[in-house]
């Protein structure tokens, strides 16, 4: 593994271990944002800039703000609680088992960047050859998301809209809304 990737990976590992062990929820929320930023750096190194963009903006930016917003409604420190021995050991067993299963799964995957991998020989060559000719824009990712798969993307936007409506209905913020509606009527 190249040194920059290795460094980012080690920092990511250290960050998530600290997040799991911290009792200070404010520091944990900030470190979660840093973990997202490190992940975004890794995505850039893998040439997945669109994904890195999203990870940095959503993971490191917006979700950290929402964590802090939720924190302002509760206390800053995690409550001390008595846990039985099985409850202390069970989470780490589940995490290690899941991690081991995932690593076992990667053994069947082609090597990273392998040009002979199946995924690079199915649709990718056609899309790379024909995007310029059919859609006339240089960004193949945008062409696939917006045009070739436009119907899927419409569905995704509806999902985001539905999520927003769900949060608005569940969490409300109705006080703000009513006052806005009131000032609108007055003006």
């Amino acid at each position, binding site marked *: 593994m190249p040194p920059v990737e290795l460094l980012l990976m080690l920092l990511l590992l250290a960050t998530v271990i600290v997040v799991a062990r911290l009792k200070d929820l404010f520091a944990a929320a900030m470190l979660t944002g840093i973990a997202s930023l490190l992940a975004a750096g890794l995505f850039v190194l893998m040439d997945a800039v669109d994904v890195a963009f999203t990870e940095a903006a959503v993971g490191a930016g917006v979700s950290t703000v929402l964590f802090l917003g939720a924190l302002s*409604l509760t206390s800053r420190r995690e409550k001390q609680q008595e846990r039985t021995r099985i409850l202390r050991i069970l989470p780490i067993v589940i995490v290690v088992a899941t991690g081991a299963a995932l690593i076992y799964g990667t053994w069947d995957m082609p090597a990273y960047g392998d040009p002979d991998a199946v995924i690079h020989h199915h649709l990718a060559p056609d899309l790379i050859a024909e995007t310029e000719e059919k859609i006339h824009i240089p960004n193949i990712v945008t062409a696939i998301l917006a*045009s070739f798969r436009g119907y899927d993307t419409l569905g995704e936007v509806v999902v985001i*809209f539905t999520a927003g409506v769900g949060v608005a209905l569940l969490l409300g913020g109705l*006080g703000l809304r009513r006052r806005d509606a009131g000032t609108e009527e007055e003006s």
Partner: protein
Amino acid sequence: MRPPSRVREMPILRVIARALVPVILLFGLYVQFHGDFGPGGGFQAGVIFAAGLIIFALTFGVEALRQVVSVVLTERLMAAGVLLYGAVGVLAMFLGGEFLNYSALDPLTTGHHGQHLGIIAIELGVGIAVAATIMRVYYAFVGRRLDGDGEATEPALGAEPGEGTP
């Protein structure tokens, strides 16, 4: 947590936010309209734009932001973004193509401009819907109070101190 009123008295935060927010919003627009050529697109642009406005709210207070973007406006824009996307698809049908076949938007040429127009329009719809949704979720978190069961209200992040039920 430190009371938000103290945060807004910090001159360094205020000065940096004042300088950064316009740049972030401009960058959001760049990502929005440059998505056909570089990385990015409607989703990333919407998130960046909303993040810029949220930084504004964190430093200058939610009230200041609500004078620019009201809660009702975010809800209308959420729907408007989705409808803009769908309308492009329906328009393509009226012009003789299939649903979301942007080539039909430009019947005069072989469809080059139609594809371009369609992608810009639907990306704009995505951007508007995403930015408005994130703003709405932020308002939902900030507008939430503990006053439902008579407990003392604590001002939420970025909210005005002393702000309670109307």
